[in-house]
């Protein structure tokens, strides 16, 4: 019974959490002031971000040192696995709110606004054909028309890029399991590069949308759902790429072996989650 012998690791008192709390206080207060055009807002906000980055470096650095120092036994490992799973579940629910909003407006709101009394009395001539910027766009003098984002250009290429990155990551994982360190590092590097290319394409797509297509965040409900969903996804790709970069640095530093490599696996789970969100996004935001 190794369970009864092995003591669960309980960390010593730590000053990182309180740094994180101060950081988020400044982050929240700064953001609330900034969106209300208070001059000090951005300064407070970025001070908060800076403290947060310091805290994350320190905290995760300590976790890595504790892990390398052999303080985490099999039960701590199991805790990490459970917690990462539940964390990803919480992220799924966050995206569900935005996918739910897209579903709601497409299935219920837009058809209701473009039919019956609403169409006859309020918004005459509003067809509701998706994508649209809402009934106020009927007034073409006040609202400039936009062109929707097509699915089969950059978005389709980006789909292939992310799917390939999932494969290269799995290849890296096999390398780790078979103690082929070169394969691990190369696979990680390729995955990060594919993620970076994805983000580059997405940035280009946004520039294209704002420039040629006249598609902006304030382009009615289509612009709102398009940019909020793809934007939050892009943010998650960025976070995932940072996680993988940390794992690459750790792999280069000689961390991980074929038995103990939960940090790597957590980053991989996260990456696959971001991958799956993109597939849903590609179908319901770009394609249909």
């Amino acid at each position, binding site marked *: 019974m190794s369970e009864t012998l092995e003591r669960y690791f309980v960390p010593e008192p730590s000053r990182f959490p309180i740094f994180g*709390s101060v950081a988020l206080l400044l982050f929240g207060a700064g953001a609330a002031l900034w969106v209300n055009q208070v001059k000090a807002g951005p300064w407070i906000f970025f001070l908060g971000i800076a403290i947060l980055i310091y805290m994350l470096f320190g*905290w995760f650095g300590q976790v890595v040192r504790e892990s390398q120092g052999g303080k985490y036994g099999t039960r701590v490992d199991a805790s990490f696995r459970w917690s990462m799973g539940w964390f990803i579940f919480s992220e799924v629910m966050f995206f569900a709110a935005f996918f739910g909003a897209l579903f709601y407006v497409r299935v219920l709101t837009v058809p209701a606004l473009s039919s019956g009394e609403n169409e006859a009395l309020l918004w005459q001539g509003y067809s509701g054909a998706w994508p649209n910027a809402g009934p106020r766009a009927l007034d073409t003098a006040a609202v400039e028309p936009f062109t929707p984002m097509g699915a089969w250009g950059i978005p389709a290429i980006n789909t292939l890029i992310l799917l390939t990155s999932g494969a290269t990551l799995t290849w890296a994982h096999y390398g780790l399991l078979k103690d082929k360190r070169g394969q691990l590092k190369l696979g990680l590097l390729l995955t990060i590069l594919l993620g970076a290319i994805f983000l580059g394409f997405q940035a280009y797509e946004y520039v294209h949308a704002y420039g040629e297509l006249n598609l902006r965040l*304030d382009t009615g409900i289509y612009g*709102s759902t398009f940019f909020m969903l793809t934007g939050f996804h892009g943010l998650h790709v960025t976070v995932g790429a940072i996680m993988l970069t940390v794992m690459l640095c750790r792999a280069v530093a000689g961390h991980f072996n074929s038995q103990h490599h939960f940090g790597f696996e957590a980053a991989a789970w996260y990456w696959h989650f971001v991958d799956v969100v993109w597939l849903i996004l590609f179908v319901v935001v770009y394609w249909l």
Partner: protein
Amino acid sequence: MAAVIPDPLDHHHHHAPSGLMRWLTTTNHKDIGTMYLIFSFVMFLSGGVMALTIRAELFQPGLQVVQPEFFNQLTTMHGLVMVFGAIMPAFVGFANWQIPLMIGASDMAFARMNNWSFWLLPPAAILLLGSFFVPGGATAAGWTLYAPLSVQMGMGMDFAIFAIHIMGLSSIMGAINIVVTILNMRAPGMAMMKMPLFCWTWLITAYLLIAVMPVLAGAVTMILTDRHFGTSFFNAAGGGDPVMYQHIFWFFGHPEVYIMILPAFGIVSQIIPAFARKPLFGYASMVYATASIAILSFVVWAHHMFATGMPAVGQLYFMYATMLIAVPTGVKVFNWVATMWRGSLSFEPPMLWATGFIFVFTIGGFTGLICAIAPIDIQIHDTYYVVAHFHYVLVAGSLFALFAGAYYWLPKWTGHMPSDRLGKLHFWCSLVFFNVTFFPMHFLGLAGMPRRIPDYALQFTDFNALATIGAFGFGLSQLIFLAVVVKCARGGKPAAAKPWDGAEGLEWTVPSPAPYHTFEEAPLVK
């Protein structure tokens, strides 16, 4: 696995910081639980002061005490502070103290993150309460923050949004910690179906938290972007829909009410067997009932929206689905009563509160069924009937169970017995004044008095005056509790390891007060 066993000599007892730094940096579940409980009591008092100001204004018709704008801020902030600042953190405080003690774990699974979960709450409270002092004052959109009102509010709304984000982060991390602790840290032999019911209810509550707090974060993010970045989620002219906000909010909001009541069920299910000196009747059915309530809670949200407008099919579905929840809830009430049936009952303060809970919570449950009936709800929607209903479940339900739990476990936390006399006084004053405050609100609501309005028609005067007297009595009664806790922390009759002779569970096998570190060697549960 020899390499991963930390050397016992190099253990973490020596250089623990003292003074303020101890509390800022602590990784001990008992310290963190204490901080949660103190924080929630402070928030309870601040939310209470807001409630008493509201009641003072409503003592007579006309405007006497506050301006209508400020009245609206008070009703909004009273709700937000009580839900996110008082009730939820209080239950997390209980979870922190009790879950490791009850399952035989040395601490929570992630002790450092546990500290962060707590220390995110004061910043959130600063943002929320600080918003009273920004230009335009705090948000006055009601605690549900319905669009389009919330899209139009001033700067205070943005502070509330970021406060909710931070509290949500705290709740999600706290909930992940609790789930992992329960799933992974149980002592050998502590099978899931042997766990104390408090742990079961918290496991399911934590699952609800992880599922719905991100949805609330999404909803308030959409408000933020609608306010400042030109999106049209809740703007019909742009193709959005303010009603959609209500759907997203209540998809969070209905599970949220179970987040605030399931741990209360857990506490009551610990206390009643202890003072009936009989095992809990129907343990397995309690677990299944809790799980069914949690699952049903995801599919009933639109019962808050019968008056908003919905197809008749939708009204029927949400009406019947909501009523279905009465079945598992009824199972629970039946089991508590059946546990007491032919038991050797004694009524020390914890049992008084738990028994009181069954009576008053059940009234709140029944009025909930009445609100669930769509044709009746059209009449009573947004009246004082609804206010009466949810205060019967949140005050008489959640809060009474919290007091029951506090009196039950205070001996373990402080090492002293809480005063029996004061505890009983606290209970009877609270019970009487609670009913004086909230029972008349049923009549006010049925007679048509709308909620969230600082003035009212003359025929509502008598019941409003009565409710205000009750509210001040209830508020003052809570100072008795403060006195009990302070006296108990400072001294008093020493408590035995197991001060209640019928109590069961691992927490009673350690001395009172519980030592700073418990179960460093996991106990064997037979």
